[in-house]
Structures are given as C-alpha cells and as structure tokens.
C-alpha cells in the first residue's frame, strides 16, 4: 500500500486535490488542494463534507444517503468513477486523492455533473412493463406469476441506482453524445428480459439504431465501476442477442399470467408460544 512514504497507522493528514469550476466566475476548471485530518474508516465523502463544513463552504458536490443507495455522489476519484460515500480512503491506499466530476457529463459546478442527458436516455428506452392486457395493467386484480428462475434472469440489472458511473467509464460515451449509454441499455434489457413483459419489440426499436445497442464495443469498463454489481456489459450483450434474434424473425413471448385468486383454504401458521400476544400486554 503506497501512502506517500508514511505507514498507514501514522498518517494523520489527508490531501484532496479537488477540481473547482464556477460557471459565473471561471473560464476553465482548475485544481485546488485541501489538507484535512485523516481518521480511520473515513470515506471520500467524509473528506468533502469536512472541507465544506470547516475549510470552504462554497465547494459544490451532490450527496444524500451516505450509504450507496441514492447514487448522487458518483465522481472521478483517482481516475476511476466511484461513489464517494462508498469509497473508504484506506481502500484506495493513497492519502493524496484527485477528485474530479464524472466525465462524459456537463459540469454544473465543481463536482456536480449534469446527469439529465442520462435520465432522458433512460426514459427513451421505455423502462416499465408493457403488456397487451391493458385493462389488467390499469386495474390489477392480482400479481403476475413469476418463477425464481425468471426473476433471476433480470434481477441483477434491476439494482441500478442511476449514479452515472458506467456512463463516465464508457469509451463510446466519451465521443458519442447520442449513444444511449450503458445505463439506459441495461434498463432496456432489464424489461426485455422480464417474463411479465411482452412488448420488447417497442423497446428494441428504441435501442436498434446505430447510437443504440450496436455502439457498444465491449470494453467492460462499465461493469468494473458499477458500485452495485449490475454488470451493464453483460446486459448490453444479452440485449444485442435479443435484437439479433428479433431481426431473424423471433417472436414476442407469452407474458406471465395473472396469479389465480386465493382459495382461502390455506391453513394459518400457528402463533409460536413465545410470541407476546395482545392479552399479555393488557
């Protein structure tokens, strides 16, 4: 572990080189260095919060949940897109970190990227269930039946938190502004692969153009940086296979049926003896 010549145990200072840019004042981004106290278990987000609270309150970055769920704090940390809240400094192994906003997105201010293009592309691939039985979709009577195997065929791709790390890592997104990007294409496959859906043809026509699924060159960087293990590279290749199969005349699947209404004959599970009942409390 390299740490600027000091042993990890004795390190007391952390240096963060942060890219700054204020559109009202600056013509171009520049790097600013902050030195702050280091403590064990500190994440990069902890460091940024420390700077904002104690050194420079004008530092702009986006963060919310602090536990890798909201996806707001994705940024380029030491040349790799990561979630700041999910990245302990010790995991990187260096105590001088370079932090920049996610590339392949416009910069709003300092470390805040404009991810609206990603959300527009996400919406363009129709990321929701589509079925022929419109009446059941609008006035559902019961859940749709789905086996554990059918669930597992797309579940991995449903964990996307839309942080944009995959788009920032993608070399095709680096040049192709129109390219839908790994996030949107993965969500297209997430619904195409769902057994409850049977209108993947509509979704496929959205991803079939040159700026869609065929733009991927399978560098695999998206899967490496995904903080939730979604594996966009796999989803895009499976989507490609689906698009290819449809171009050869593949047909839509029959969607999962609606579950049969409960018969009411199921035996109730007996309440264990140790459970505190309402009578015990009174």
């Amino acid at each position: 572990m390299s740490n600027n010549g000091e042993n990890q145990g004795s390190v007391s200072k952390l240096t963060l080189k942060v890219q700054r840019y204020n559109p009202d004042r600056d013509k171009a981004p520049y790097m600013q260095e902050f030195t702050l106290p280091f403590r064990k278990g500190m994440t990069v987000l902890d460091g940024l919060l420390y700077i904002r609270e104690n050194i420079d309150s004008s530092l702009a970055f986006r963060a919310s949940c602090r536990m890798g769920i909201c996806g707001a704090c994705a940024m380029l940390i030491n040349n790799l897109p990561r979630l700041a809240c999910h990245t302990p400094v010790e995991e990187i192994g260096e105590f001088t970190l370079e932090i920049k906003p996610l590339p392949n997105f416009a910069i709003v201010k300092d470390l805040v990227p404009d991810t609206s293009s990603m959300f527009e592309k996400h919406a363009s691939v129709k990321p929701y269930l589509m079925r022929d039985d419109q009446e059941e979709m609008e006035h559902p009577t019961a859940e749709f039946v789905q086996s554990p195997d059918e669930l597992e065929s797309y579940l991995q791709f449903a964990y996307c938190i839309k942080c944009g790390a995959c788009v920032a890592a993608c070399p095709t997104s680096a040049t192709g502004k129109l390219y839908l990007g790994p996030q949107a294409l993965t969500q297209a496959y997430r619904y195409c692969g769902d057994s409850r859906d049977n209108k993947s043809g509509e979704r496929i026509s959205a991803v079939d153009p040159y700026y869609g699924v065929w733009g991927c060159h399978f560098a695999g960087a998206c899967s490496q940086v995904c903080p939730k293990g979604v594996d966009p590279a796999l989803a895009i290749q499976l989507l490609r296979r689906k698009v290819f199969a449809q171009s050869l005349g593949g047909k839509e699947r029959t969607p999962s049926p609606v579950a049969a209404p409960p018969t009411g004959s199921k035996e109730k599970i007996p309440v264990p003896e140790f459970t505190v009942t309402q009578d015990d409390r009174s």
Partner: protein
Amino acid sequence: MKAQSSERRYLENYLGIKGWVWGGRYRLERYLYTLHRISGLALLFYFLLHIAMNGFRLSSGESWTSLMDIFDTPIVKFGEYLVLAGFTFHALNGLRLILQELGYTLGRPKPPVYPYVDALERRRPIVFVMGGVIIILLVVFIFNFI
C-alpha cells in the same frame, strides 16, 4: 436531447478520443479494447501502404525490384513482423468479441453478492487462452522472419 448545456452555461466534459486511449485505472479488457482499435487502425494504414507500394508494379518491373531492394532491411522485416502480430491479435480478439457480443460464453446473470464479480471477470480464462494462442503463434512466426 435538449441543448441544456449551452442555455445554462454548463461546461462540456466529454473525454473525446482521449477517452478511447486513456483508460484510467481499468482492467485488462478495457486495454484490449484500446489495443483492438490501435491494431485495427494500424492494419488499415498497412493495407493502404500495401496497395500504394504494389502500384509500383504498374510502372515497370525495375522500379518494383529497386523498391524491394530498399525494403530488404532488418527494420522493415521487423515492421512486417509487427503487422503480422497486429493481424493475429486483431483476428483472435475479434473472434472473441463476435462470440461475446452476441451473448455467447458470458453465462447467465447472477445476483450481485459483494464482492461483485461480473461476467467478463468470470470468463477471464477465455482471454488468457486467447493470449496463450497469440504468443504461441507469434513465436512460430518468428522462424518465418529469420
């Protein structure tokens, strides 16, 4: 897409072609992508050069012979070997990409359990086998150039 960036004075931050070459701290497959692009462009350049050089045959037999005499040097021989190496890599990696880009050999989606291992990493042995075959072929090709 809306041109929001210009309206709100957001700063464009696309990595551009630098994003193809400069990978950052990425793994093997990301650099195979870069090498595939570079070898592809190099092969294209070689083919153009090859066609131009063969054009000398149209003028006269002597000009062709004198051109070949100029090229009969160890540096050009090494260059030809590099072209063959580039072709071998591009062809074999291309076969891997054709198979994997249609979803073959990648396996099924798996529930993400930390530490996450994605499909490319699970299938890393394919890349190692490909690399082994390339090295064996390149060693064999050396004897053609000695």
